[in-house]
């Protein structure tokens, strides 16, 4: 018997002319939690898609338990004991937990489903994973939290008797306490001899959870090593191929006393009595747990959702913003958290995306001026260093970091003076993150004011000039740079006060 549960050796995969994987190795020992990391576009997803049978590799061998296998399709992968939990969970929202687990492996006699058998079978795996934290297996899964749905997805993977479970960015949409629960589940899987491949951008998690790590960069295998032997800086340098001295750029701020945005007693469905001021040229951080109502507050100010009470003043003048269109007229911009569903026109080119909020600047009485269009789009295309051979490339083909750059370019092109950034670096690799921080610093120097929602504490503290923390729809506290600490933010975020 081999020491390795999984070996992928010399895997190469090209798409038309782009080499996505170049002679990549991945060796995962039995019963370990193995981290797979790399920047966006490093080839992690492609490698996992080869393993799960979505893509067919051009070259290379795959061995499971020392035995060479060829995985033809996703079903084949499952039969060979490999299951993958995607970031976008693969559950049917309308079906309940049990039916989801049984999907595709229904217990039946002549097509008649044996409900009792199904319940027993599914319950075993659901109980194993959830340990009582899912209130009911009989309600549609869409009524459950993301964390609970994820548990069901894991139970589904286990029910296939999988020996290797791949988790792709499993913690991305979870709160801190939910992440802890996830870790417990993963550790339990390990105890029971299941091998886990864990993909994450959050390096802290890898040190807390994983045994070994494989680093990919630009489609190439860089190294694999025991986590115990390395530190975070070393890991980052391997990921980006150079030393990264500072995670956050130095601040160059000339914060003025001029108030550009004033919110007073704003109340809506999921927040109440929210009041704060935003000064010209500052970055105001908005901290709190997922679901604390931060996004909802910004959406209400931006006119994307209705609010029931409260006033909004822009540059001292009361503003009635009932549609994002009005928000733009007041010089507001909003880069939403979910880029794909709320920020980008994926089927359109980079140029059209950049210009979407600035069409009045490149048109004369409703008619587009193609020269002006190109000039304006080129300006921000270059300024944000979007990586693409040309501006016609459809946004769906860009990496996460480049997509975010296009979203930011759109708002810069609109020349907004107040910019809301909701989780601006979520799902973006380390190098691109730094570029976005630099850009934010440059913007505030030019007099733009920014409100940034972030669930990553280092980012919140490293970038903001001032932090407001929300808990269950209200603002629980304000922290100035001197008071920044994870402890203070956590306390406020869970509704306690800070001494």
């Amino acid at each position, binding site marked *: 018997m081999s020491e390795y549960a999984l070996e992928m050796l010399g895997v190469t995969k090209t798409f038309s002319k782009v080499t996505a994987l170049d002679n990549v190795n991945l060796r995962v020992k039995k019963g370990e939690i193995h981290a797979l990391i790399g920047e966006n576009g490093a080839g992690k997803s492609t490698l996992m898609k080869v393993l799960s049978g979505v893509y067919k590799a051009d070259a290379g061998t795959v061995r499971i338990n020392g035995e060479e296998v060829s995985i033809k399709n996703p079903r084949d992968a499952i039969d060979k004991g490999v299951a993958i939990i995607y970031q976008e969970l693969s559950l049917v929202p309308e079906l309940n937990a049990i039916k989801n687990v049984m999907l595709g492996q229904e217990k039946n006699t002549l097509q008649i489903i044996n409900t009792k058998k199904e319940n027993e079978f599914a319950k075993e795996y659901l109980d194993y994973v959830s340990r009582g934290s899912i209130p009911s297996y009989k309600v549609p899964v869409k009524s459950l939290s993301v964390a609970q749905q994820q548990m069901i997805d894991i139970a589904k993977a286990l029910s296939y008797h999988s020996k290797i479970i791949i988790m792709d960015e499993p913690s991305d949409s979870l709160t801190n306490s939910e992440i802890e629960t996830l870790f417990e589940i993963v550790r339990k899987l390990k105890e029971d001899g299941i091998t886990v491949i864990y993909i994450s951008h959050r390096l802290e998690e890898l040190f807390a959870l994983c045994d070994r790590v494989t680093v990919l960069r630009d489609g190439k295998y860089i190294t694999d090593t025991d986590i115990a032997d390395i530190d975070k800086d070393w890991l980052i340098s391997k990921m980006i191929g150079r030393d990264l001295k500072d995670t956050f750029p130095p601040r160059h701020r000339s914060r003025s006393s001029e108030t550009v945005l004033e919110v007073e007693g704003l109340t809506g469905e999921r927040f109440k009595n929210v009041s704060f001021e935003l000064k010209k040229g500052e970055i105001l951080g908005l901290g709190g747990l997922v679901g604390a109502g931060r996004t909802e507050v910004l959406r209400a100010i931006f006119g994307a959702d209705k609010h029931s009470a409260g006033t909004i003043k822009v540059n001292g003048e009361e503003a009635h913003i009932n*549609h994002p269109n009005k928000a733009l007229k007041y010089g507001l911009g909003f880069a939403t958290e979910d880029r794909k569903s709320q920020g980008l026109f994926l089927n359109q080119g980079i140029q059209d995306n950049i210009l*979407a909020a600035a069409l009045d600047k490149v048109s004369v009485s*409703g008619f*587009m001026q193609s020269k002006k269009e190109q000039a304006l789009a080129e300006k921000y295309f270059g300024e944000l260093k979007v990586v693409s051979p040309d501006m016609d490339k459809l946004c769906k083909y860009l990496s996460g970091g480049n997509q975010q750059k296009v979203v930011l370019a759109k708002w810069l092109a609109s020349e907004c003076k107040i910019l809301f950034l909701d989780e601006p670096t979520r799902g973006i690799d380390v190098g691109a993150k730094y570029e976005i921080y630099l850009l934010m610093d440059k913007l505030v120097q030019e007099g733009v004011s920014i409100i940034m929602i972030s669930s990553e504490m280092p980012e919140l503290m490293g970038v903001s000039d001032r932090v407001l923390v929300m808990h269950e729809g209200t603002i629980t506290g304000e922290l100035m740079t001197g008071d920044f600490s994870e402890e203070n933010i956590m306390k406020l975020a869970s509704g306690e006060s800070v001494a």
Partner: protein
Amino acid sequence: MSKEAEKISVLQRIKNNPVSVPYGVLVLTFIISTIASPDIFPTYSNIMNILRQASIVGVVSIGMTVVLLVGGIDLSVTSIMALTACLLADMMEKGAAAGQTGIMAGQVVLVLILGCLIGLINGIIVVTRKLEAFIVTLAMNMIIKGVVMVYTKGAPGGKVTEFWQNFGSGYVLGIPCAVILYAAAMIVFLIVLHKTVYGRHIYAIGSNAEAARLTGIKVNFNKIMAYVLCGFTAALAGVMLMARVRVGEPNGSTGYDMDALAAAVIGGTAMSGGVGTLAGTLAGVIIMAMVNNILNLIGADPNLQSLIKGLIILVAVIFQRKEK
């Protein structure tokens, strides 16, 4: 860049252009038809005949493309056409009795506005109630068809003034009048879709309505406008149909909805919105007219037309899937 490289890049651009496939099919259809009927098919008069037949579906397909681009659909176009044709023919009968022979612009504008209004109602219901355009416009189609049937008692009626008789069968500079009107409508809408802010908004909304809203685009208003435009082109097609058959025929517009839809889809317009061009739709329109024409010329069973059309649509859709 060397000439060789330039050549490759031109080829590459043709290959990447989404309308290349429909125009490729168009050329192919033309060649096959020419081989099948070398004496009649490629003649000038026959080509003009094809274009004239294409022009009415063509005008309907313009508005249909716009509605498809915002992620909607309009199934009420045939009854809008029928209503326009019958109403206008009726008014013209009275006009002609009073000795009028001209364009009767007032009445024509009136029915065009009526088309816009029906589109407006479609749009308002679909957008503000957030309903499926398919169902709303299907119901609207039945309602208006019912009105037309009650109004005409199901029988053709009315007269057409001399001006419109000439329009229906006449030529200007050797080109049928209907084709000139279609070309004019195409030019106007090509400008609207590709050269105006409204056009950009249409594509943005179809591509991602929520992102468009959060980008400050007035999604609801622009969507409603798309239905208004579709109502307008349907009414215009109704006028053209009336001129061609010289009477208000309540059942004369049957099938135009599906033909327009098919033309848009053959031309590369996605039913999900945001993807497609009028240039592609034009190719779709002409392909279908050519197929009708050549099947008539070679004396094929008329029942075969439906089968061939269906096959072309299927092949077109299968090809587009592959493109992605």
